[in-house]
């Protein structure tokens, strides 16, 4: 690997980017996704976090242009030079330009250039890496069409970027195992796409201070949010994650940033729609959607998009019923039922939790669905509830999942 003369780098961990325009070769959502995934490659191996801005000046300004485009390095038509980017500094520093005379694609074909691969390379420059003479490295200067499914950053690139920025913060002591592979997902024709609303302010959550990880078997352990993900169960508290999996023994300790570097800690709620291989995270009045490690483009969105009244500024918990395709949202002493097929709140809601869920007379802090049962967590207890009858079966400690 190499760096630029004097090894310029960003002197902060929160770096912003903005996509100034789009190529007509691809859907805008696909461009957004390619760029976001390219940033995730680098954030997954450094302490860096990337936030997208929709207006104003960002550290890394991304644009498509042909021929002469305002700097001293004009593009050259189809082929030849595909893109370039500037090393970290003010002004044009960090900016990445893509030659619009190329045919950009989200595929790896012979008839175009994969935007994710080229963007990942250019963003390496935006972060301070020069070219590598290691054949197969991402920072090798020649375009190499590579399978981008489950693309992993080559070791030379990891070495280079970590020489500049170091490894990610709070790396788990044990190696983090990859999430199970994605199963074929169901698509729902009735799902209406939600308009993404650009925001003036940065899209990152507001980070909070990080206390020490609570002990697994602390009898007073509480959780912010709980969700399943591809057959596993993730328990969230602050920045910490406890991961229980049928594929390995024990409880794995992780952090939110180790899975989703651009999501700040402190979720309010989370749930999985397993048929769509999608998990939604909620914090304050926004929500994000992820698929495995990938944050879906077009997020965050306001929770009002789901049909909450404006008076609801945050939710406490959420859980999805796979059989009925309904998601239950809990806030205060009330709950809503959301139809995932029609993407709308059901009539007659909100209703009082205590009216319908016998034995649950309080707020729900987190909720989980497992093996046909709901588990509602409140403080350091959890309540096992039959989904169909909505009746309480038994009460346990919240950390009974940890084999204490």
């Amino acid at each position, binding site marked *: 690997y190499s760096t630029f003369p004097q090894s310029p780098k960003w002197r902060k961990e929160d770096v912003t980017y903005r996509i100034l325009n789009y190529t007509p070769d691809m859907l805008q959502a696909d461009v957004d996704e390619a760029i976001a995934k390219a940033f995730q490659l680098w954030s997954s191996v450094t302490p860096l976090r990337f936030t997208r801005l929709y207006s104003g000046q960002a550290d890394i300004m991304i644009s498509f242009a042909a021929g002469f485009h305002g700097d001293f390095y004009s*593009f050259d038509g189809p082929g*030849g*030079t*595909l*893109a*370039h980017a500037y090393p970290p500094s003010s002004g044009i520093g960090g900016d990445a330009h893509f030659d619009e005379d190329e045919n950009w694609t989200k595929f790896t074909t012979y008839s175009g*250039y994969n935007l994710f691969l080229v963007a990942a390379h250019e963003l390496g*420059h935006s972060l301070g890496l*020069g070219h590598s003479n290691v054949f197969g490295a991402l920072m090798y200067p*020649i375009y190499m069409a590579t399978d981008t499914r489950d693309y992993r950053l080559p070791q030379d690139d990891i070495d280079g970027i970590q020489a500049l920025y170091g490894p990610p913060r709070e790396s788990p002591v044990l190696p983090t195992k990859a999430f199970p592979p994605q199963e074929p997902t169901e698509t729902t024709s009735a799902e209406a796409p939600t308009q993404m609303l650009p925001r003036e302010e940065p899209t990152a959550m507001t980070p909070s201070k990080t206390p020490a990880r609570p002990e697994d078997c602390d009898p007073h352990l509480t959780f912010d949010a709980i969700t399943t993900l591809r057959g596993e169960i993730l328990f969230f508290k602050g920045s910490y994650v406890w991961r229980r999996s049928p594929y390995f023994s024990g409880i794995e300790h992780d952090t939110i940033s180790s899975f989703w570097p651009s999501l700040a800690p402190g979720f309010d709620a989370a749930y999985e729609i397993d048929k769509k291989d999608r998990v939604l995270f909620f914090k304050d009045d926004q929500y994000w959607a992820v698929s495995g490690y990938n944050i879906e483009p077009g997020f965050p969105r306001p929770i009002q998009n789901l049909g909450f009244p404006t008076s609801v500024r945050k939710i406490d918990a959420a859980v999805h019923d796979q059989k009925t395709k309904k998601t239950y949202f809990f806030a205060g002493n009330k709950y809503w039922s959301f139809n995932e097929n029609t993407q709308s709140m059901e009539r007659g809601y909100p209703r009082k939790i205590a009216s319908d869920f016998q034995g649950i007379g309080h707020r729900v802090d987190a909720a989980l669905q497992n093996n046909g049962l709901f588990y509602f967590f409140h403080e350091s207890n959890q309540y096992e509830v039959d989904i169909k009858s909505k009746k309480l079966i038994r009460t346990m400690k919240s950390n009974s999942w940890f084999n204490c």
Partner: protein
Amino acid sequence: FPVVPEKEKEDMQFAKKYLENFYDFKEEKNSLFKSKNLNHMAEKVREMQSFFGLEVTGKLNRKTLDMMKQPRCGIPDIRA
């Protein structure tokens, strides 16, 4: 096979441009010593061949030209 002179000239111009863009080659246009320019260019060709793991000859052979014609990033390969 005999080399077509026009093609050879084109390849030379292309290679010069490539080395200017990516290997900090600066041709002294007003130099009276053509051989000095050629030597400097050969040095840059060697640098490029070494970077890409090609046989380091300083000559614009087919493999070197083919490598120069690959689609690539616009940033130089050497610190400049």
